[in-house]
């Protein structure tokens, strides 16, 4: 038998915090002071946290040849790198993610050379002394242009 949909209002189930605490907590979380503290905490931990990104980068290198794992690791890098200040690494990883996602939509096989170029650039950017260098930014731009060109070619049914 089909059950009639039931709407359960917030007052009818246990809340995370009391109503009086909710206003206080919300005010704290939305305050400039909290944002400053949070940003400073990330900054202070960033050296340690960058090692996390580099762990993913090592796993990305090891995954070449397996598109599913490569795409998975690229997503992880995209999500983590910018938070800890590895901006170019994040941008390049974002380009690789976009390439995988769009090729999946087209039902096309990603090109090994495009993947290899991105992985190589991610490895270099993540391990560079000055990650946010003009060189890394240029590489990110060039790779984004390459992906756009390849996707346009795939969409048009030509090799690109």
């Amino acid at each position: 038998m089909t059950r009639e949909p039931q709407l359960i209002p917030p007052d009818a189930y246990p809340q995370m915090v009391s109503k009086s605490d909710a206003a206080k907590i919300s005010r704290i979380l939305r305050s400039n002071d909290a944002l400053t503290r949070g940003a400073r905490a990330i900054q202070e931990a960033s050296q340690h946290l960058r090692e996390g990104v580099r762990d993913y980068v090592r796993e990305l290198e090891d995954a070449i040849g397996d598109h599913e794992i490569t795409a998975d690791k690229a997503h992880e890098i995209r999500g983590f790198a910018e938070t800890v200040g590895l901006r170019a690494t994040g941008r390049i990883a974002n380009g690789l993610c976009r390439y995988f996602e769009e090729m999946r939509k087209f039902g096309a096989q990603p090109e090994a050379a495009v993947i290899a170029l991105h992985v190589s650039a991610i490895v270099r950017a993540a391990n560079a002394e000055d990650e946010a260098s003009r060189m890394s930014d240029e590489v990110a731009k060039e790779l984004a242009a390459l992906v756009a060109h390849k996707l346009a070619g795939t969409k048009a049914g030509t090799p690109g």
Partner: protein
Amino acid sequence: MSGSAFEGLQVLIVEDNQHMRSLLRTLLNSVGIREIQEAGNGAAALDVLREKPCDLVLSDLAMKPMDGIDFTREIRQSPRSANPFMPIIMITGHTEKQRVEAARDAGVTEFLAKPITAQSLFSRIAQIVEYPRPFVRCDAYFGPDRRRKALDNYAGPWRRHDDFRDLHVQ
């Protein structure tokens, strides 16, 4: 600053990368949230919750052996769940529509796309605290109301008893 407001608030972080867990813990600590538990995947998180219930879950999406979607489904639907109404913030670098919809349909409360910032994380938690959502229970779904906006031009489908009442009022 905020010690008393967050006192007793229990948060569970479910994430397979220890550095990401560390980042989330660092951010929560920075506003005075101290009571934090961690698990490396959905199955381990369920074990943690059996031992000690919590008030809020921050969960990654892609994990093995149990991902964030299956974990959410367990929380919402399992008869063994300690709190099927528990707020779950799904943190993910996977923003493809298909995955987001799967997580939404499993009963996730909020999404947080990576890269994470202090502002993005804190505003999601504030959102849950300020505007708790009604829950919907029907044959195919149990979880937070998936309709976030009352659209004037919404043309259906009308599936709820309340929908019809509202229509009649109009």
